[in-house]
């Protein structure tokens, strides 16, 4: 019974985070973030992937990430931007899942790696799509900006996650063996 309730709660959180990530993608599309690499994005929606990773799990975070890329690509971008987003999102998810699994980093660190991976993935796709090797020089500002946005999102996550944890539904379904009522 507990497992079924947790799954329902996961679905609810996934829906919530998907909606949030679409809003963040919209906000992202309003901010002109142009380095001369077409289709590069700020990566704000990684916040939702991060939250889902901590609250629900690996599968849930990945599903929402991919769906978000597709939906946001149709809503706020074009096909070519979707390619960059997909590359950035997948690489970012892999790095974040890996860092999360090692259990040695705070959400800030996990998100930091995710932000850098997000930008790096986009850069690699851009280098192949535009057939310009010298774009790799962008790796320096991209690492810095990716680390900055990642750290910022991670910091937000450290504020949000305890609030989620305090919600009563989650307490009843806590993975801890004892209930903290």
């Amino acid at each position, binding site marked *: 019974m507990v497992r079924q309730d947790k799954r329902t709660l996961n679905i609810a959180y996934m829906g919530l985070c998907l909606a949030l990530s679409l809003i963040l993608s919209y906000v992202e599309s309003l901010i002109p973030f142009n380095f001369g690499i077409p289709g590069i994005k700020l990566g704000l929606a990684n916040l939702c992937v991060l939250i889902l990773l901590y609250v629900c799990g690996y599968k849930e975070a990945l599903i929402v990430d991919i769906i978000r890329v597709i939906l946001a690509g149709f809503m706020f971008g074009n096909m070519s931007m979707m390619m960059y987003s997909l590359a950035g999102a997948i690489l970012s998810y892999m790095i974040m899942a890996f860092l999360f699994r090692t259990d040695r*980093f705070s959400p800030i*660190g996990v998100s*930091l790696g995710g932000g850098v991976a997000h930008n790096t993935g986009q850069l690699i796709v851009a280098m192949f799509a535009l057939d*310009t090797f010298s*774009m790799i020089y962008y790796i*320096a500002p991209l690492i*810095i900006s990716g680390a900055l946005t990642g750290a910022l999102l991670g910091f937000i996550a450290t*504020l949000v996650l305890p609030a989620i944890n305090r919600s009563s539904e989650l307490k009843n379904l806590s993975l*801890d063996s004892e209930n903290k009522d």
Partner: protein
Amino acid sequence: MFDNDIIQHSINKRRRYANDLILLAALLMVSVSVLIILRIFVGKGAYISINIMDQNGKSGGTGVEYRHSLDDDGYFVFYEDEYGDITACFYSDEEYEEAGGENVCNILRISDGSADMIYATCPDQICVNTGPAFKTGQSVVCLPHRIIITVVSGENMNGDHDTYNDDGLDAVTW
């Protein structure tokens, strides 16, 4: 802050933040070393390509293109005549002091290996607000005046050497 998380943590908060800093330092070191390695092996000087589209705006129309080395400091001054045609003229730093100021619509400054639009008469000023362009692929564009400036390298990815301006011409029209 996240000690109360559902997931049991085996190491404490302080250690995690320390690890975060280590990760950040490692990433910065990676970026710096990539730059250093690239600087050693790929040290091609950069040029800018200045394109002025003609009033029809179609590609393949009679536009004008200049190539200029970013090592050659100076100013590109763009003039607009009464017909709306735009021409550009390059001045070195000394000549720039003497140059006249009539009908100037844009000024592009070449210094420190970068090209920066420092003056424009267009209403939106996007070209001026774009920072200096110094890396291959970066560009400074003034759409109202149909000026497109791109940083290009001497070679493309295939290593073909571009013998474009070996004959000493400053400009080519087609």
